[in-house]
């Protein structure tokens, strides 16, 4: 089976991927304006301050949208089909892409379903965020 694409941490994201290894989804919080963001970058997207600190998310959110993939984007995902990709809106505000945790019945997912984060180890040093309906 072909290897799935793995995230390659960069200067902006090292802490984020290490946080997942510890089961934590790290959001960035701006000390100047209080804005909270998921996509890691050097500055606050609201006020452009560089005074950002990491803050673990509660791990809770709702399904904002989703799509069940029946046709894999490549050979590495063929065995997983059908699988559910989620656009989750975290309780803290930001949205993120993730997929359903293993062994979750896809029928249990709908718009506004409440979900909770879990992390899954997919490679020696890589943990991915997944979500499970509560």
């Amino acid at each position, binding site marked *: 089976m072909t290897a799935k694409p793995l995230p390659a941490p960069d200067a902006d*994201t090292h802490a984020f991927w290490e946080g997942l290894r510890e089961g934590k989804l790290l959001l960035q919080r701006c000390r100047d304006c209080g804005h909270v963001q998921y996509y890691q970058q050097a500055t606050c997207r609201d006020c452009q301050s560089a005074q950002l600190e990491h803050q673990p998310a509660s791990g809770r959110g709702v399904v*904002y*949208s*989703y799509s069940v993939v029946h046709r894999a984007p490549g050979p590495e995902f063929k065995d997983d089909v059908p699988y559910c990709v989620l656009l989750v809106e975290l309780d803290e505000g930001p949205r993120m*892409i993730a997929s359903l945790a293993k062994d979750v019945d896809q029928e249990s997912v709908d718009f506004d379903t409440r979900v909770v984060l879990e992390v899954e180890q997919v490679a020696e040093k890589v943990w991915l965020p997944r979500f499970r309906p509560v």
Partner: protein
Amino acid sequence: MSNSAQPSIRGKTAVVGVGQSAKVGRVPGKSPLALSVEASLAAIADAGLERREIDGVLSAHSFAAPFHRFSVAVSECLGIAPTFSNTLQVSGATAAASVNLAAAAVQGGLARNVLITAGDSLLTGMTPDMALRAMTESRDPQYEAPFGIPVSNTFAMTAHRHMKQYGTTPEQLAEVAVTMRRHARQTPGAQMTEPITVADVLASKKVTTPYRKLDCALISDGAAALVVTGAERARSGPNKPAYVLGGGECYTHEHIFLMPDVTTTGAVQSSRKACDMAGVGPGDFDVAGIYDCFTGTVVMMVEDLGFCRKGEGGPFVAEGNLTHGGRIPSNTHGGMLSYAHIGIGASYFHFVENVRQLRGECGARQVPGAELALVHSLGAGFACNATTVLGTAATL
């Protein structure tokens, strides 16, 4: 109405030449470069120009070609040395963005005759590596790709939410596909002409919720080209000029999870800007080109482009408003859903068709008296939106 004190491209340039590869769809044995040059030579001849009169070249990227600078490869292949050239990258919005930029460049004196071309061999020319590169064109390698998101998935999530929020039905989405197929059947050379019904769409293989195979654009080989020149030169050319009356664009996000509202897009601002510059409103258009990568994309666009109210796109398309006799005959060539989808440059064909409509050259699929056209290009899960308004001399 447009403010004449503001800088404006209104009426300063026109599309005077259109061309395409002799064949679209399955065209083995021709490289994207060869296809683009074929289309380019056709457009240059159509404009009544010699190839050496082209001093500007804009193109999209081509997945099945090895070039980093496709526009420069095109001019090298044509044996010309332009003073203005770029290989633009705003995903599927590149077509309208190219026309807008060409108009500004000509008006600004950076070039006199700009060739705009796109070509690719998505069906027969892709190696596995190239296919992977195409797949990841809109995917973030850290935040999205690890979850196995196909190209369609981002668009699918917006359409899925649109169904939830506004009650848009699979049958209404299917009507878009049926309409595009009907249009393609009247267009010589269209890739898919076998008639389809709503039932056929609903029975086609699932791709990614809510999309089935017939909800999705084709995969094609082919190329299209346009020539843009100044209004004065345009008037003495062999064809009725299609004047560029307005251009607008909008880039609201890079990642789907940072899209402010997944069911309302930057097409609102993009089209409003283009229409304001042209001094027209959505109700003034006779014909349109709407980027149709998926059926649901068109449903959202008829709302955001102002042809109907937000949330009413489903009933609007189901009532026949995208075809002859309806409110805004669109993609009369069959679009990406049935004519051809050559990747980033797909909506260059929408420009070719709408220019032909304004010239009155569309034969059986002509919209009688078409004077004003809107062409909207978009890409990367609605990250990029670009609009061009074209009109005949009567609209100046």
